[in-house]
């Protein structure tokens, strides 16, 4: 079957969201948004809040409301990335090796208060996936005395999917995307992690999922991330079989 890398990542994200009831997707996150809207096709009750959407923003009280919502326990799934991500699921959005990044945004709060966080970064390299982040914008785990509702559930990259093992505070290589090899993952990952003897391939989109992605999902995504939709699905936004 032919599909785009973005489509593989989106269906993986849809599976990771699972039975959540409320997903919040940050700015500049077209792939998580695609995954969430794909899932909504199957579960219309799923609530998706697109943050900083230019129109039809779901909030009525300004930029504080997302954080209040999360504090109240009303956000089940959130997405975070990182200029660096390490083997303890710490993320760094501030600075590394003399380079300055934009900053931590709400990560240090959302990582604690959302029900679960999916770490997502397409670049899979030793530069991004490091042994230890240079700056902890938001910690991957907290000692027991610290109140923390949620934490990392998984780390999805352009090459592989890792599951987070809460007890061991370590990642487990869950699957490698089709065409990739476990050895290549080891070579491109700066942190140590567990892996089974046989690492399965990440399941690709089913024909039904592809139909949805290229139909109604592409339509919604094009409204909010026009550049991305054009790149993945072209101007025509084809429906059904391609």
């Amino acid at each position, binding site marked *: 079957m032919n599909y785009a890398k973005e489509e593989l990542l989106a269906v993986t994200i849809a599976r990771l969201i699972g039975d959540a009831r409320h997903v919040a997707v940050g700015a500049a996150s077209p792939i998580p948004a695609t995954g969430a809207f794909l899932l909504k096709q199957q579960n219309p009750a799923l609530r998706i809040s697109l943050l900083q959407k*230019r129109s039809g923003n779901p909030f009525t009280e*300004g930029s504080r409301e997302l954080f209040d919502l999360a*504090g109240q326990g009303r956000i089940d799934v959130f997405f975070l990335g990182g200029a660096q991500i390490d083997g303890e699921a710490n993320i760094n959005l501030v600075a590394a090796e003399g380079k300055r990044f934009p900053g931590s945004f709400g990560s*240090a*709060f*959302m990582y*604690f208060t959302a029900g679960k966080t999916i770490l997502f970064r397409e670049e899979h390299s030793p530069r991004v996936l490091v042994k230890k982040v240079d700056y*902890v914008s938001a910690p991957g785990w907290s000692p027991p005395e610290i109140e923390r509702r949620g934490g990392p559930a998984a780390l999805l990259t352009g090459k592989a999917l890792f599951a987070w093992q809460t007890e061991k505070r370590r990642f487990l290589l869950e699957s490698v995307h089709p065409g990739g090899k476990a050895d290549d993952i080891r070579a491109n990952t700066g942190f140590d992690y567990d892996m089974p003897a046989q690492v399965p391939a990440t399941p690709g989109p089913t024909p039904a999922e592809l139909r949805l992605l290229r139909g109604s999902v592409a339509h919604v995504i094009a409204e909010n991330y026009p550049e991305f939709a054009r790149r993945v699905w072209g101007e025509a936004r084809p429906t059904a079989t391609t």
Partner: protein
Amino acid sequence: MSDLRSNETRFLEDADAIAQEIPDGASIGLPPDYSPVAMAVVRALVRRKARQLKLIGVPVLGLCADILIGAGCVREIETSAVTLGEAGLAPRFTAAAEKGALRIIDATCPMIHTGLQATEKGVPFMPLRGVLGSDLVRHHPDWKTIDNPYSEGDPILLAKAIVPDVALFHARWADEAGNVWVGRRGELATIAHASKSCYVTYEERQAGDMLEDEILAPGCIGSVYISAVAPAPRGAWPLGVPGMYGIDDAHVQAYARMANTAAGFQQYLDEFVLKPVAA
């Protein structure tokens, strides 16, 4: 708190008149790029060669900060991020940060809201969950960890009240009573409530008193908080005003390219800031 008892909104002529009233060294609370930014005043601040400003991003900073930093107006920023959104990194901020030419107090969005809410309530601090274990806590000068007085062995972080000297933003409407309408952009109300003085540019003047209108009132910030307003049609450009005009993405992207070098940034200033520009 110099201006807190000010209760008469003054009507100024234009954005430059506002820039004249914002003194060098002032701390300025600013909204994110997706909430109306008083870009016309930002350009006027560059023209009047404002210096030593402290910018507070509520909760993030964007184009306005990058321009002010590039033009040498800024001593220090406190923010949870500086970004041009879809146009990528903020180039003058990045350059200044990497050169060490700017004091940066890194924060996280809800801690900035929390610090302003403390001032809004008139309390010296307010707690927030999460954040503990982040390096932000180690570096931030104003945050403290205490034990939750209601539950033993339960550490919790406190934000110290943030009191900007100046709140500065753009609104869709101002009325004859000095009220401004900002719709659902609640962060603008929080900045206005927490700041010692508050300057607002507006797109259009409304007759009468919007607070007498049950439909408009919920989106208003009452004149009791507003020091002065000034007209600035398309005053948020190249950023947008919800319901009126969107972000001029092409312009912001052009900015991002030009501002990648100091020379290109100077050219941007010459072309779009130092000489009056029609949006």
